[in-house]
């Protein structure tokens, strides 16, 4: 039911094995599509290369925030123990690296983990409860056993009719033009 009136969001094609998806994806990239994506029930190896998706930068974010955790911990222990209210305890120094290690380590890990999780959500723009692809008939099974290839309308080469046609040529189970 492709007619010129409707505003398309993306053209999608459905496959039943990860292998098929990856093969198709390679062709799509070679065909010069860049605003592409794939919906899969589990991380499919090789899809990133196939679609030319760059590596994640999450690691750097985590590193920075982890370091902040380290600093925060050391500051906390030094300031509370040696500056704000210095009390002689067990004849030990007011602040010492030795007894600061455990708490410092823990806070580093804590900060890093928060960074990893919330960083990941942020990079993925989650939570996102509505998505045009939800309107597609086939996307329901991507969390089960289907593998869907997506070409976004923002792609310069995108054309409702031609793109669909191109996708059909990759012998998917089916194709669909998703409305916004």
């Amino acid at each position, binding site marked *: 039911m492709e007619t010129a009136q409707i505003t398309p969001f993306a053209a999608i094609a459905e496959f039943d094995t*990860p292998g*098929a998806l990856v093969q198709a994806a390679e062709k799509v990239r070679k065909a010069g599509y860049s605003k592409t994506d794939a919906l*899969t029930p*589990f*991380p499919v190896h090789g899809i990133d290369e196939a679609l030319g998706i760059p*590596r994640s930068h999450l690691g750097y974010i985590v590193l920075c925030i982890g370091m902040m955790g380290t600093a925060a911990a050391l500051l906390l*222990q030094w300031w509370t123990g040696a500056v704000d209210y210095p009390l002689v305890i067990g004849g030990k120094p007011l602040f010492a690296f030795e007894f600061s290690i455990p708490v410092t380590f823990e806070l580093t890990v804590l900060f890093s983990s928060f960074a990893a999780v919330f960083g990941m959500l942020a990079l993925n723009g989650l939570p996102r409860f509505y998505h045009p*692809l939800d309107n597609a008939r086939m996307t329901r099974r991507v969390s089960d056993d289907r593998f869907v290839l997506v070409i976004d309308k923002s792609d310069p080469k995108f054309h409702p009719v031609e793109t669909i046609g191109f996708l059909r040529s990759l012998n998917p189970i089916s194709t669909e033009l998703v409305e916004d």
Partner: protein
Amino acid sequence: MADLAIKPPLAELNPPLVEGNHSYSTVTHTVSGIVERKTPKQWFIAISISGAITLMMLGMIGYLFLNGVGVWGNNSPVGWAWDITNFVFWIGIGHAGTLISAILFLFRQKWRTSINRAAEAMTLFAVACALLFPLIHVGRPWRAYWMFPIPNTDLNMWQNFRSPLLWDVFAVSTYGTVSALFWYVGLLPDLATLRDRARTRIRQLVYGVLSLGWRGSARAWRHYEMAYLILAGLSTPLVLSVHTIVSFDFAVSIIPGWHTTIFPPYFVAGAIFSGFAMVVTLMVIFRYAFQLEDLVTIKHLENMNIVMLATGSIVGYAYATELFIAWYSGNMYEKFAFLNRTTGPYWWAYWTMVSCNVISPQFFWFKKLRRNIPFMFVISIFVNIGMWFERFVIIVTSLHRDFLPSSWGYFRPTFVDVCTFIGTLGFFTTLFLLFVRFLPMIAISEVKGVMPAPGASERGQH
């Protein structure tokens, strides 16, 4: 897909991780089915029992708060007894989950996939039980928040960062938080699966909200996998640090029997040991109850038994080392402490510990026995008991006779001690039952990841 070529030879070496002829959708169906099916009667029976026990625990805690720690058997010199024993016991249990999900992940142990979800859940619930005790064991629970560095305008007082107990506060709370995050991240894709399979509006909304709109886009999977890897990388040292720090509570003190340098590795080994035992206990029950034999195969159980055998032997070695060093050190207090452990008033506790922890796992040298479900179930129970006794032995027998004989004493538990501990078992079970009822107890997407790809083209992926 790199390893497709070498799949056949691998297959001969390793039995398949999923038995029976399963496809992606059948896996999805088997696991989600548990959550979607009408609640079985047995579940209600089980949870009403465990719920009742949980209520008893709450009652005991209420009674404790009204009257004080004196309702327990703790005394002078035995200032810590069942309270901290239970704390260490539960924390130890928790460690297996993190180990399976994080360390085995880093070691690319694919067999972890079908048990890690349940194991992580177990971790969370065990930590929940453990966290209870530091909070209720204090004399003035309403002041327990003083253990956290909350800025205070009136007192101008802070915490003492020299105290291992404070390290504990940070370690355990961090551990709890990180485990929860790790677990939830793992759940996201499966929650999405449940959302998409949901028939009723409520299920759609609930799982829709919980899954935060996860759609399995490749661009999302890329960050997701990175996050998962990082969390695994963080959890691995974390889990080791947590029990190390727990062991510091004792190792950093001066009490003979506590003041021991081998505690950190010894505690970590013990934790893994007890944790795996608990996983086996639970898995044996639930794989039977929900017919998951295909996903949680005998191979999985056997692997865990091997780990138990290994860690159990390490623990046994640690016991031996303790005794040797006590004798070799020539320190009279140290010497006495261990002589007292093995032959003193608590000899029965010590030998229960040894027979449960060191002897019982040795049966797993025999393949037949470690693949025998009823047998491993019994052993896993023994190990659980033994590991509880290990903590009891370390804490109580060291405290009840230390330096000055004039202050020696003996500890006897009260009914409140006993009921509180049993209560935590109920609490733990309740949480676990709720988990298996409403959440996928096997990581669907991960299992799919390690399945041989279905036929359409020969090209599967790893």
